[in-house]
């Protein structure tokens, strides 16, 4: 009797072929995936929302955090302006980073996420502690908020808190100089006229919203680098591009509430966030006690334990960004918005332009310093004056051991002398006028 084969070799061979083919396909796919990963890493995003957000009921946190790499020549004020944040906010979010000469390649956090202030979501709400303005508007049944950084009053002349409204508005406003400010300027040797007309010397900028509280305005500025500083005489300043938007969007009689809340808590998507800012100078610990009491109430209601150590760290660091501190819903923190990587824009909006050197122009020597970083810092500060004074660092030559910072070019000696006067008054710099290297004769001008 012939033995039957248990295994048909041809069938077996076929199966082997199929298995081999399957393995090859898997291997190739794996290679393709790996290759794809090597060639196409997650790309930085091009854009991020900075000003306008939808407000959802029960949600207190808007926006997203982002990081971006510094490129040579960047300053934090330039990055702040481009991304519509204040100099205070970008500095607080990046402790230890040099404001004027950050390191090339350094990663900067852009604080573009905010917890809405604890105030009615209507009209304009300004939080002095965070130096941020929020404008709530009902649009087609849904609520939106436009938010902008602001400059606020100094310690000597603070911006008042309280409720008021927009009494009137004006484009290209004239600045009627208050007596106290006129006196300050007179003492400095810089007498001001009674009225300053619209133009580059007008500190109100192109638009003004006059508040019902007399003498207080929300206005533009001729010193954009002051946004996020306590530098006004009580008014609220906005970047030129932001006051334009606010002016168009804000009818007269819009309610305005000004608060001072350095600690904010809010929730989004099942996560509780804490945002801490440096409390106002001379303030007591009442705000801290208030917020901790609120946190205690939330902890009790949610029956979940707060990480109080983390809370204290966030409060002490005061970086001004929303930090998750409690999951109100299991697993919510994993799904929370992550920080995104942003591509560096081709140009930063509002960055001062440095004109080319001209041999027939007047210049002003503003500084001669040993350290290149000091020279770059000085030039950047001069560039960001309002109105701007272009300045640059001259390369070290074999003849001089230091780095020279020159301001200019200026058309004539009068312009140069004006710059010398401004540098002395505003920055206490003793500058020297430099004559043109080459004088162009009238006949050769075109």
């Amino acid at each position, binding site marked *: 009797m012939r033995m039957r084969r248990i295994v048909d070799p041809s069938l077996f061979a076929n199966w082997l072929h199929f298995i081999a083919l399957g393995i090859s396909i898997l291997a190739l796919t794996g290679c393709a995936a790996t290759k794809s990963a090597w060639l196409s890493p997650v790309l930085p995003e091009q854009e991020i929302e900075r000003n306008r957000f939808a407000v959802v009921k029960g949600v207190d946190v808007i926006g997203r955090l982002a990081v971006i790499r510094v490129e040579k020549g960047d300053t934090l004020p330039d990055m702040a302006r481009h991304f519509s944040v204040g100099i205070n906010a970008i500095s607080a979010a990046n402790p230890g980073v040099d404001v004027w000469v950050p390191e090339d390649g350094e990663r900067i956090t852009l604080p573009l996420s905010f917890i809405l202030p604890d105030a009615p979501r209507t009209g304009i709400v300004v939080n002095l502690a965070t130096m941020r303005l929020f404008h709530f508007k009902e649009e087609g049944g849904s609520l939106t908020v436009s938010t902008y950084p602001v400059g606020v009053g100094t310690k000597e002349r603070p911006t008042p808190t309280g409720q008021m409204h927009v009494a009137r508005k004006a484009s290209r406003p004239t600045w009627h100089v208050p007596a106290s400010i006129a006196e300050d300027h007179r003492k400095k040797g810089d007498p001001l006229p009674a009225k300053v007309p619209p133009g580059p010397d007008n500190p109100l900028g192109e638009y003004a919203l006059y508040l019902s509280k007399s003498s207080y305005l929300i206005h533009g500025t001729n010193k954009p680098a002051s946004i996020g500083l306590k530098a006004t*005489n009580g008014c609220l300043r906005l970047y030129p591009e932001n006051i334009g938007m606010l002016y168009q969007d804000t009818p007269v009689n819009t309610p305005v509430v000004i608060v001072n809340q350095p600690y904010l808590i809010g929730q989004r998507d099942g996560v509780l966030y804490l945002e801490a800012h440096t409390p106002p100078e001379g303030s007591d610990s009442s705000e801290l006690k208030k917020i901790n009491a609120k946190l205690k109430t939330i902890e009790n209601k949610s029956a979940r334990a707060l990480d109080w150590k983390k809370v204290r760290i966030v409060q002490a660091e005061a970086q001004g960004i929303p930090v998750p501190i409690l999951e109100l819903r299991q697993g919510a923190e994993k799904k929370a918005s992550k920080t995104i990587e942003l591509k560096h824009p081709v140009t930063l909006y509002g960055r001062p332009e440095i004109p080319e050197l001209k041999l027939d122009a007047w210049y002003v020597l503003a500084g001669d310093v040993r350290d290149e970083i000091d020279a770059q810092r000085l030039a950047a500060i001069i560039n960001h004056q309002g109105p701007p004074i272009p300045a640059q660092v001259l390369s070290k030559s074999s003849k001089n051991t230091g780095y020279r910072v020159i301001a200019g070019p200026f058309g004539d000696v009068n312009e140069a002398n004006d710059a010398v006067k401004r540098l002395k008054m*505003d920055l206490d710099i003793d500058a020297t006028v430099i004559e043109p290297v080459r004088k162009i004769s009238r006949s050769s001008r075109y």
Partner: protein
Amino acid sequence: MKSRLLAIAMMLVLAAALTGCATTREMEKVQAEQKLLDAKVEQALQDAQAAKAAADAAKLQADDATARAENAEKAALERERIAAEKAQRADAAFQQSMRK
């Protein structure tokens, strides 16, 4: 009797002599060994002294390097402090310039 005594005496002398020889040899051996030992000790002492001298020199070098490193660190910290002060002063001047 006499001759027997003489023989015994001679044997004794011989034994003593032989013993003496042995003792002397031993003594010489001991002395030689001692010399060798002395030489070893001397060598060891010299080696120890050389090692100590080398260790002292290394310690001096290390101390010197530590001192230089500490000085360099102090100088770096001082430079950092000065740089931070300059930056603060510049920022203060800038903030003042931003007032109306």
